């Protein structure tokens, strides 16, 4: 274990000359993005392409009594008007369940609603026209008669006997329930000197990717192939699902993912309207494009969070935590989202609560209920912001109650750095964590003692600043335990194929995808280092199911840890193949040779022997000069999947320093720190930028973001003027540092870093706000987002 600073070291733990591991090399794909030369799906046009728009249900729950599309069909430019019933002849419905989430149930969901709409925004009819504008014009001419039904919109009463059951065939509105007890919570609470009990509320929010969801589907009846241009995180998963529900073989479907304008978990799910587009293309035998507009994004992009967690903690006067208890309730949409389900977030809350700490006494219940609101599913840091805010909120409330410094209470309870392997209260397994090293580093990095002194001095002047912390664990590098064991065809493994071209450059085809996080750069770094070429000579090919090894894509912080290892291993394998041929050419033993900086060298002396361009020239154009029986294999493929651990947990701690204006209720974020441990850091700059971007996404959840519904299931703020996102003026600079504890499950030792920021930031800010307001006697704020109104109410000012 070692501490690294924000600035990278040029040296590497991985023993290769000219290694790029641990270096902040720039991403190879940035120039086109900066020159307006990227290709996002919204930029794609194809010959004969038509555009789709949807008529969407204005009601949260309604019977569709009739659809009259005769006027729309006559409108200028209209190619087709298609209802759910008509489209259901082309594409089959799906049910979003996983068998390892026992008891999880859902109802069949159609690409376009058939007979009944179950949330405001569900597509009821599609119009395909020459232009999007003409399609939208014609949408206004579709006459739909609805019979409004009672909308179930309150999770608290969704399970009451008198509440309407949204899917009568399921018996009740309970999607999923998990109960977990570990240790002896009852005895733990009895042994406590103090018990703190409160209810945490997490607003429903959404991803607001800058590029909305976009898809172009092109059914070529001549080839009997469906080519889908889609901004997705998981091309192979989508290939499987498009094929399955269109009645095609997988090899008949090609999913192409080029530049994607932001994902964050939003673009890793099956969306009914996107399924409708592939079906419409099949039906109409021509390319069909759909780009969600911003209002459609708000009512159809998956929402997340929306948890109410009743929670308590027992603590002794010496700071020992004695027990945890949580009761989580979350209201999803009318369907569990396919194929990852809407049960995972609540399941993660149960898994992760109390995770950083030694106290084993834990009682948890989580219930997931159906509502007539937009669907809910996995969004960046799934479950972590909730579990972390609950755990860390309880820890700081307990510290305040017994009068102990919050960092000191953590020191007395965090799992010791030398106690691994270990496990959390829910039974989650930790290979190796570094909570105490991270905490110690944070303490000095932020000058905690100095800030406390400043805080005390400013309070005398009526300025209320707060310091809050959040220790956390993060799930990364998931094995098949996440989805595969539950029956979903979502690959846990990933593959990389590297190929030496005829001039000595290298192509790497890999299953993980680029969402802007830097997977392409990391892949190039791994290949260049393992094989031995300058990074400029590596070209990475991603996002094409015809041309990459089968893989899972990008989610759960897996691209660098899993994809990077596959690329590293493939690079090594190609090096072996190439030095074998070079040995044959040079009449040297292959194990005396190496490849460095694009040249085959003597391994011991570094003396240059033959360029890769010359090896390639001979292998490709003059193989006749090689000895009989020697065949050059200048392509190598390797796959990787974590096997020793179900998940490679990372850990870390964040701190927030902020000021609350007690007259206006506004919160000014002054500083934010994060020390985390993602194992081997392949690219320090990219890791830090993942942390920073992730923190800011968490800050949005803490202070601004909420999808506000009324009790009839209408989203009241579905636009970017009313739904507030973090903008530059409100965000602080964020200081990052790392403890490095590599995973032994891979040679690289890299764990994921994509979600740590989002996991910790909301709880951290909550604790800082409460720290600021505690001397004013304000009731603890536990209801996110912490808007000025809520703060003023807590202060008794409104």
């Amino acid at each position: 274990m070692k501490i690294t600073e924000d600035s990278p070291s040029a040296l590497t733990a991985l023993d290769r000359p000219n290694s790029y591991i641990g270096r902040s090399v720039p991403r190879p794909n940035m120039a086109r993005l900066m020159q307006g030369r990227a290709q996002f799906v919204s930029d794609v046009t194809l010959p004969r392409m038509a555009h789709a728009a949807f008529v969407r249900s204005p009601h949260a729950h309604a019977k569709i009594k009739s659809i009259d599309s005769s006027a729309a069909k006559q409108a200028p430019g209209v190619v087709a008007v298609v209802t759910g019933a008509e489209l259901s002849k082309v594409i089959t419905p799906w049910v979003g369940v996983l068998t390892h989430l026992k008891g999880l149930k859902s109802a069949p969901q159609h690409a376009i609603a058939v007979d009944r709409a179950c949330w405001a925004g569900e597509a009821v009819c599609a119009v395909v026209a020459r232009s999007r504008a003409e399609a939208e014009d014609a949408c206004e001419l579709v006459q739909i008669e609805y019979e409004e039904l009672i909308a179930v919109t309150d999770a608290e009463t969704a399970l009451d006997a008198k509440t309407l059951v949204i899917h009568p065939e399921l018996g009740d509105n309970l999607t999923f329930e998990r109960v977990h007890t570990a240790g002896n919570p009852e005895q733990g609470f009895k042994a406590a000197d103090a018990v703190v009990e409160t209810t945490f509320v997490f607003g429903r929010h959404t991803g607001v990717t800058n590029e909305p969801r976009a898809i172009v589907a092109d059914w070529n009846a001549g080839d009997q192939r469906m080519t889908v241009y889609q901004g997705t995180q998981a091309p192979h998963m989508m290939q499987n699902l498009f094929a399955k529900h269109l009645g095609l073989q997988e090899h008949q479907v090609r999913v192409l993912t080029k530049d994607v304008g932001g994902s964050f978990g939003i673009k890793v799910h099956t969306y009914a309207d996107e399924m409708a587009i592939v079906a419409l293309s099949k039906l109409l035998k021509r390319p069909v494009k759909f780009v969600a507009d911003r209002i459609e994004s708000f009512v159809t992009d998956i929402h997340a969070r929306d948890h109410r967690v009743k929670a308590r903690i027992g603590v002794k006067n010496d700071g020992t935590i004695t027990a945890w208890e949580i009761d989580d309730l979350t209201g999803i949409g009318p369907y569990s989202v396919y194929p990852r389900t809407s049960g995972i977030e609540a399941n993660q809350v149960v898994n992760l609560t109390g995770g950083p700490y030694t106290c084993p006494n834990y009682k948890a219940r989580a219930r997931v209920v159906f509502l007539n609101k937009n669907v809910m599913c996995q969004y960046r840091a799934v479950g972590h912001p909730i579990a972390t805010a609950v755990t860390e909120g309880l820890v700081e409330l307990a510290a305040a109650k017994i009068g102990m410094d919050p960092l000191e209470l953590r020191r007395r309870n965090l799992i010791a750095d030398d106690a691994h392997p270990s496990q959390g209260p829910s039974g989650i397994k930790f290979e190796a964590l570094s909570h105490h090293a991270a905490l110690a580093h944070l303490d000095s990095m932020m000058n905690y003692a100095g800030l406390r002194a400043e805080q005390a001095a400013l309070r005398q002047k009526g300025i209320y600043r707060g310091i809050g912390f959040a220790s956390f664990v993060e799930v990364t590098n998931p094995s098949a335990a996440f989805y595969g064991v539950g029956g979903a065809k979502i690959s846990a493994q990933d593959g990389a194929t590297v190929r030496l071209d005829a001039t000595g450059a290298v192509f790497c085809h890999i299953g993980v995808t680029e969402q802007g996080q830097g997977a392409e750069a990391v892949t190039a770094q791994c290949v260049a280092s393992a094989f031995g070429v300058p990074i400029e000579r590596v070209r990475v090919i991603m996002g094409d199911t015809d041309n990459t090894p089968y893989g899972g894509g990008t989610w759960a912080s897996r691209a660098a840890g899993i994809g990077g290892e596959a690329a590293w291993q493939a690079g090594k394998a190609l090096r072996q193949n190439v030095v074998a041929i070079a040995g044959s050419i040079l009449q040297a033993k292959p194990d005396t040779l190496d490849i460095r900086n694009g040249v085959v060298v003597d391994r011991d002396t570094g003396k240059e022997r033959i360029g890769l361009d010359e090896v390639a020239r001979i292998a490709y154009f003059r193989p006749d000069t090689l000895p009989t029986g020697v065949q050059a294999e200048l392509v190598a493929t390797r796959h990787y999947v974590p096997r020793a651990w179900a998940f490679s947990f990372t850990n870390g701690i964040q701190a927030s320093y902020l000021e609350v204006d007690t007259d206006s209720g506004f919160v000014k974020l002054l500083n934010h720190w994060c020390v985390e441990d993602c194992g081997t850091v392949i690219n320090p700059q990219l890791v830090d930028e993942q942390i920073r971007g992730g923190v800011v996404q968490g800050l949005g959840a803490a202070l601004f973001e909420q999808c506000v519904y009324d009790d009839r299931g209408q989203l009241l703020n579905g636009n970017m003027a009313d739904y507030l996102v973090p903008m530059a003026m409100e965000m602080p600079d964020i200081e990052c540092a790392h403890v490095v504890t590599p995973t032994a499950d891979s040679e690289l030792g890299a764990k994921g870093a994509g979600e740590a920021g989002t996991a910790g930031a909301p709880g951290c800010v909550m604790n800082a706000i409460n720290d600021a307001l505690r001397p004013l006697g304000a009731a603890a704020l536990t209801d996110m987002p912490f808007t000025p109104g809520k703060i003023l109410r807590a202060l008794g000012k409104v």
Partner: protein
Amino acid sequence: MSEHRCDIKLTVNGETISETVEARTTLVDFLREALSLTGSHVGCEHGVCGACTVRVDGVIVRGCLMLAAQCDGAKVETIEGVSDAGEIADLQAAFERRNALQCGFCTPGMLLTAQELLRGGGVPSRDKIREQISGNYCRCTGYQAIVDAIEAVAQERAEAKR
């Protein structure tokens, strides 16, 4: 010219363009669909996110809040033109060095917005930089890297002037 269509003549990135447009067509849709200049992006279509930022007669505007028909006689510059002209090469290099973009969807608008501030000269404070880009939404970076990159270019340009 019918009630719903207008003939417009304008220059786009120095090229003279004569087109007939629907009166309702926004400038950004016109650039993207009629001229295939897809570097200007459509993010929110109501003037909040800044992804559609382009220059009209030297001033940055929201391409989603201006109609193509309003641009008759105007000089329009998009990221493609400004980039090809080399005007922001230093800013682009700084964005690359600092990884001031991830998905890159906001980046064309962000660059044009930053360049407007930088063209004013001097070395603006970080707060001033944040204020300048406060109407440009970036979901990926958290803004710090963008502020760093813009600040670095302001310093470089000020240094070069001395």
